[in-house]
């Protein structure tokens, strides 16, 4: 039986990708940020998951305004890094897991989630930066990846509760997949940041840390946070944290926190990172 063995949450700031690609990770500005991922890189090298279901948002790369899917699942064999305006990141092509991805799509649709199925897509920093943070700069990614893109740009994005429920449906889908696979679910984006308007640069470390607490304790409260609270308290792009709830919902009622890291700033952003394990 395929099973979900862990959840990872991490921010996916584009400047982090540039810092890795340009060899700047030891510079004083970046060192404290990357140090917080040392434990996780070692952990995942030992864990060796077979598949990562990577929840992220596309930043006007694969999807423009023509089509706005709320939940889109990548079912292709592979996904090339997108050219976001300055050439594609020098990272390996992402290898998918079409059998599991199609299985999740059909299982979630039967479970009353209207998934958009994507068979050709390029993936932007939202997906590749988390892979770089956990795996460094290998010649090939040591894991298959199922991209799960969530609309958190055009309002309304899905509610936190809807994201949580999708996570539960993904868990049911994974557990009904024949074959022995170790699957992780990653929720990416966030934490507090605002990239637009006169209020740009907002950081709310207190709120972010309470959210990190709630991921492992009192997690049911996470489901009830309304969009307006994310917007007021964590900036307009802090809404990306709803994507963490898909990961959290997929892990089940109780989790153990294996690792936690929080750092300000990375460019305009607060960076949060968690590694969680389901408690059977």
């Amino acid at each position: 039986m395929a099973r979900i063995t862990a959840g990872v949450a991490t921010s996916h700031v584009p400047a982090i990708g540039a810092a890795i690609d340009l060899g700047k990770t030891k510079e004083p500005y970046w060192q404290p940020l990357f140090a917080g991922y040392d434990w996780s890189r070692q952990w995942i090298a030992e864990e060796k998951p077979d598949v990562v279901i990577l929840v992220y948002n596309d930043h006007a790369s694969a999807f423009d305004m023509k089509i706005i899917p709320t939940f889109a699942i990548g079912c292709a064999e592979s996904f090339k890094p997108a050219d976001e305006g300055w050439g594609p990141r020098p990272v390996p092509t992402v290898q998918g897991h079409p059998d599991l991805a199609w299985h999740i799509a059909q299982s979630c649709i039967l479970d009353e989630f209207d998934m958009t199925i994507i068979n050709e897509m390029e993936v932007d920093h939202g997906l590749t930066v988390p892979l770089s943070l956990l795996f460094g700069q290998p010649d090939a990614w040591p894991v298959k990846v199922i991209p799960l893109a969530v609309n958190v740009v055009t309002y309304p994005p899905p509610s936190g509760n809807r994201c949580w429920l999708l996570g539960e449906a993904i868990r049911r889908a994974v557990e009904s997949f024949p074959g022995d696979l170790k699957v992780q679910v990653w929720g990416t984006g966030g934490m507090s940041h605002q990239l637009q308007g006169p209020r740009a640069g907002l950081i709310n470390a207190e709120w972010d840390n309470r959210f990190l607490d709630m991921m492992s304790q009192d997690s049911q409260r996470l489901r009830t946070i309304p969009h307006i609270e994310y917007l007021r308290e964590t900036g307009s792009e802090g809404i990306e944290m709803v994507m963490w709830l898909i990961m959290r919902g997929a892990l089940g009622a109780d989790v153990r926190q294996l690792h936690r890291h929080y750092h300000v700033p990375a460019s305009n952003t607060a960076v949060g990172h968690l590694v969680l394990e389901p408690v059977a």
Partner: protein
Amino acid sequence: MSHQDIHSYLAAFDDIPGTRVYTVARARQGYWINQFAMSLMKPENRARWKADEKAYLEGWNLDEDQKAAILARDYNRLLDLGGNIYFLAKIFSTDGLSFLQAVSTMTGMSVEDYQAMMLAGGRSPNGVRSIKEGN
């Protein structure tokens, strides 16, 4: 979960100081600003844009206000006219600016002051949560 009233959901967004939430009203108004910006993902379009910005804009269904705001790189105005920051990023990336450099232009701060604010922990949420509540 109780059902959300769409009107109160949307009205609350107008109560956040210095923030333009990308609602469907803005998405509709700014459709062509964003699609124009998206076109700059292609190197051949970036070359044409750089060669003659005004001529490039003629190919898009934009009104004079929108064109002027694009040419002036007036990002707050572009947000008001329906631009979205992830799309507008294609314009400032083509200009060779980072997010931090471009975003600071919307705040009335210099790039240096904005960067110093971020290094010191960012902008505090105190006083900028709600216009009505003044908190």
